[in-house]
């Protein structure tokens, strides 16, 4: 190992292995830990009292539960799609951002996975959607989008965690070798699966990594589409559109990319990894975010165009979403997820930490409002005016959402503390290539 490569490994590996981590990390962890407690509280209250503690009603049987579910899935999908493409294309950028893109995806899946269970009227019976050999021989309804969703999210969780884990194996071995305590050695050792760094190991690893990455590609489309089907397959006028899966995939990708950008910029700044996540990397990420925002914008236009061609009831429903009680959601979404990202046309903005944070958050917020607008605003003008009502979230619902944000942040913080956030082996590999050329 050259001295330069040694330095890389040191910088990156030192982070999880050092005993001290600075007060900012502690403060951040405490803050997110408090939100995790809030999450626990809201989960317990909804389990004991029922989903009536939320603002849901008839006809708005779904509120924040599905909004946040769809939103987290969007983050997970966008991030893992991004990671998989990098792995497959052996793109330079992968060394810098792959690891935490995978991490972001995995943690987002965890956050998303909370909602489908907790939103049930009787959550303790969630396993009934699973086709297990029940004595009363009732099977799930395979025509139901919720059954599809069950399969999609469980597959998604498995594949995303595999992608993240397979990528981690060589670095876990490094951490094992460098661990300063015996317990650390043991722990990292178990998860390193006896990695010895032989050529055979490397060959198998590359094959497995790329295989999982290939699996991610169709899965992402399937997952986002399945979420979209939950709406598109129903008879609700504004939801019942074939363009819905495309809308979810595209906006979800923009959202996932923006969160990767946000986390990359934050890590670069917070952990001083500027050398490994360099300006070029961030610049490229910014271009991708901009491109995906443009695709989203195109789909927004498409929505209006298809509404113009639609029959009166769906047309009225879509226009009500744009101009009615919930129009604010729609326009907020446009501003945040489409207009603000246009900043990234500027090279300076693409390379600026502040702009990266701003745009990253902005798209996340925008897509969240988009989901809100679809799920709530789209349901408002249904077929029978007599049942038209409004929905507003309650504190327990908001608390649940904040709680998942806290959980996500806490997982990320623990991740940067205990695992290498930038792939050490890939960085070394890159630098070897540079040195040999």
């Amino acid at each position: 190992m050259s001295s330069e490569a040694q330095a890389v490994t040191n910088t990156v590996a030192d982070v999880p292995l050092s005993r001290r981590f600075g007060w900012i990390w502690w403060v951040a962890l405490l803050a997110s830990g408090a939100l995790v407690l809030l999450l626990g509280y809201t989960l317990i209250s909804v389990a004991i009292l029922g989903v009536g503690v939320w603002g849901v009603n008839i006809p708005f049987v779904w509120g924040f539960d599905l909004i946040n579910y769809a939103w987290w899935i969007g983050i997970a999908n966008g991030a893992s799609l991004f990671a998989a493409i990098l792995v497959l294309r052996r793109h330079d950028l992968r060394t810098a951002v792959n690891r935490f893109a995978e991490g972001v995806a995995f943690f987002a899946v965890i956050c998303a996975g909370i909602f489908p269970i907790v939103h049930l009227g009787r959550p303790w019976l969630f396993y009934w959607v699973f086709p297990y050999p029940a004595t009363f021989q009732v099977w799930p309804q395979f025509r139901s989008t919720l059954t599809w969703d069950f399969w999609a999210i469980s597959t998604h969780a498995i594949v995303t965690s595999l992608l993240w884990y397979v990528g981690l194996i060589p670095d876990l071995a490094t951490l094992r070798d460098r661990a300063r305590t015996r317990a650390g050695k043991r722990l990292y050792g178990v998860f390193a699966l006896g990695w010895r760094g032989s050529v055979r190991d490397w060959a198998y690893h590359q094959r497995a990594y790329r295989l999982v990455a290939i699996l991610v590609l169709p899965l992402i489309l399937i997952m986002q589409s399945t979420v979209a089907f939950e709406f598109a397959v129903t008879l609700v006028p504004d939801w019942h559109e074939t363009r819905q899966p495309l809308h979810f995939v595209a906006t979800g990708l923009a959202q996932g990319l923006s969160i990767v950008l946000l986390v990359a910029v934050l890590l670069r700044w917070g952990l001083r990894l500027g050398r490994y996540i360099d300006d070029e990397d961030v610049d490229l990420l910014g271009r991708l975010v901009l491109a995906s925002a443009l695709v989203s914008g195109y789909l927004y236009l498409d929505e209006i165009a298809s509404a113009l061609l639609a029959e009166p009831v769906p047309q009225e429903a879509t226009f009500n979403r744009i101009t009615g009680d919930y129009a604010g959601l729609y326009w907020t979404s446009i501003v945040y997820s489409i207009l603000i990202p246009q900043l990234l046309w500027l090279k300076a903005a693409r390379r600026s930490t502040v702009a990266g944070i701003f745009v990253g958050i902005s798209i996340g917020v925008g897509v969240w409002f988009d989901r809100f607008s679809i799920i709530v605003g789209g349901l408002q003008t249904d077929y029978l005016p007599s049942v038209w009502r409004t929905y507003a979230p309650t504190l327990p619902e908001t608390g649940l959402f904040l709680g998942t944000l806290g959980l996500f942040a806490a997982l990320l913080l623990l991740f940067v503390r205990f695992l290498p956030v930038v792939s050490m082996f890939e960085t070394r590999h890159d630098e070897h290539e540079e040195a040999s050329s």
Partner: protein
Amino acid sequence: MREKPPLDIDAVPVPMTTEKGPTLWRSLEELADRPEVRRQIEAEFPDVVQASSIDRRTLLRLMSASFALGGLAACNGNGSDGKAPLLSQSRTLPGSTPGVPLTVATSLALNGFGRGVLVKTQEGRPVKIEGNPLHPASLGATDVFAQAEILSLYDPDRSDTPLRSGSPMSWEELTNSIRPVRNELVVSEGRGLHVLMPPTSSPTLHRLMAQARQLFPFATFHVFSPVDDGNRRDAALASFGRDLDFVYDPTRADVIVTLGGDLFAEEPGHLRYAADYQARRRMRDRAMPRLYAVETRMSLAGARADERVPLRPRDMEAFAQALAVALGTGAAPTTEVHPSVPKLADALRRAGSRGLVVPGREQPARIHGLAHAVNAGLGAFGTTVRAIEPVRSADDGTGTLADLVSAIEAGAVSRLVILGGNPVYAAPADIDLASLIRRVPLSLHLGQHRDETAEVCHWHVPEAHPLESWGDLRAFDGTVGLRQPATMPLKPGLSVEELLGLMAGQNLDGQALVQATWRQAWGDGFEERWAGALEDGVIAGSASPTVALTERFDMTAETAAPSTSGGIDVVFVPDPSVWDGTYANNGWLQELPKPLTKQVWGNAALIAPEMAAVFGLSSGDAVDVTVEGRAVRAPVWIMPGHAPGAVTLPLGYGRRRAGRIGDGIGFDAYAVRPSGRPWIATGEIGKAGERIPVVSTQRHHSLQGRDIVRVVAPDQAPAPAADQPSLYPEWPYEGHAWGMAIDLDACIGCNACVIACQAENNIAVVGPDEVAKGREMHWLRVDRYHAGDPADPETYFQPVPCMHCEKAPCEVVCPVNATVHSSEGLNDMVYNRCIGTRTCSNNCPYKVRRFNFLDYQGTDYVASPEAMNPQVTVRDRGVMEKCTYCVHRIGAARADARVEDRPLRDGEVATACQQACPTTAIVFGDVNDPASAVSRLKQSPRHYALLGDLNTKPRTTYLARIALSSENG
């Protein structure tokens, strides 16, 4: 004599102190040691018993033998010959089978008039009330109040202990206290005794009142009801020289003009009139009748009317006068004629004796008089209207509340007995009845609740619920229906009959009191007629005969000139949900969306859209309504079709002591009701600058130009829906295929179906907060839409139960198959399988599914478990529920048919909503049977499916409403 349990509390045997207590054994050893067991062991195992020393093996044999035989001994009680069944049989009434409901025919009063009902009892407890088809005021239908009486019966707030100055006393103390007072009164011949009671139609009460008068010749009876018919009485006296009741016959009417009031909701015979009017509409051999409603606020009759004339009350008299003049009676009009008068007059003139003018209760006597004059001029008396002796006739010498007030003020009242009602709450605002009653040396209140009146009386006696006691009631046409208990008394109490009987020196036996009345009337053959009357619920042939009228119209009589001075007219109306406040503690009624406003849990001042614009008000803004110097703060509700320049205040809310449900709900309109003008007063409204939330179940009132409620001309048919292809194969329904047809032309929006469904299916009451969030649980809702000009709109009602779609969108989206199709085409909900994803509701275009967002069956609003229908599952939290087409009734009818080995007959299965409907708007049956009533309706040219273009193939379908063209025809 029936014994009151609490009166005999000392005589109740206490099991533990009796000599021969129950033969319980406390341990196996004790059991094995009993003499009969020992005898059996001796006979069976002599060697064991005789053995002096016991080894281990013997001990075990002995023990096992003891236990085995001891067990047998436990089965055969002392002295049993072994033939008695092992398990005791449940106590049953003769002729009843456990599990099979028994039906009791009885009568319930609304404002003193009887409506015949059949009470379904399950193992001795009433669970459901249906109309009595033999009773003329019901014809098998019910109104919301009759349906809700079940919940009132089980009301946990019902009074069950006599009170003395607010603290409980025993029944013995009560009788001991009353006896000397009564003796004293007998001696003084009732000097200073005043009795206040609501008007009653009961012959037994009238008999007892007469008896009491003989005993207490100086006593005075006063009659008071907040829903008072004084205007009608005054008009009858002025027009015909005597008090009369008027019975209408809409089946014979070609043209009906209502002047205020509500023919279909507030008249004593409202159920019958609604049924008759619809029967008249269905007569194919005659042209459609026309209904014109001239009114201030929109009534059910006005909503159904072919033409409505919104008119502020102060213009009503001129209108009626002009109508009379146009028809050739009365003096020349003094004011300019309303543009609708000639049209109505023309229609009435052409109808001749088949015309009918119906004045509303709240209209001044002069309008009633003008209506009589017009009816007489048309020759309607004898055709569409007849006069009968007043059904609630009180003997001469009966005073009013005002008489009582002056008597108390004069210090002439020493003993006041209030028999039912709640006059302290319901008295007009200028009568401070509470402090007046406090001035009476001794007052007694008989009432079902410890209400506002009980609070100020010295003694309070719990009143028995009508379903627990004996009595008799006369219907709007005089027909007598007997009231018999449908249950053992759930709480100790006395009926009005019993207390009045006690005063008159009779025994405490309600049944004997009622029997005595009819024994006297019938003489011989009493037993037979009594049994028959109990069985039928009505006394055949007891309807009042028509009174021949000696006309004495006094149309020239000068009345107060219509006040054209400033201010706005304030109209008081009984509330469609809680009436005069009597039903304030009834959760079903509180949560019942009012027909026209869809408001629940409260009342609101109803104003016209035009007036709202003038005052800058929107629904929910608070206003101060001031009448004669007194003010009440109320939220407003903009009611399309309300006449401008007037505000309508529904009575019955703002109760202080109604109970846990009804306390502090809404505003108290009695607080501004003047005794001089109890129905229509003049006042002011002023914006209060705050908002009082008004909870309504329907937020949007227009059809949005959508094809939801179809309206056709009499011979026209809506465009037929094209058959659309489906991805799913057709399912062959062999055997039955259940379906429903709802005739929108018949629906008057009275809500009877909604509350019948609630009672039948154990539907939870969720309370105002939950309804405000949009979580009411009614399986059947009545959508109300307005179309056209908000000042004078068309109003449509559309009952929406589950459509039981053949291609049900809810079924395919449930991940766990919790909602599935039955072989007879029902869309079944499997509560146990539901995990609560709520996807089914998302995919239901009709939004008829209801979700248990919280544990609604565990709240304070929920009925006592005894009021639950045992045939219907009570749903848990987290579970979706919806209309089942009363699947338990289908099952019961099918079981009956199988037992009798015959096919199910058409009409044998009636859903709860169908059964309650006064106009037979809802018809249920087998659509596979081409001869069934529902199949025939579905062949009607007016037939259409709601949202039929979604191709859900609903089994519940509608018949379009018929709109007559506005020209005379």
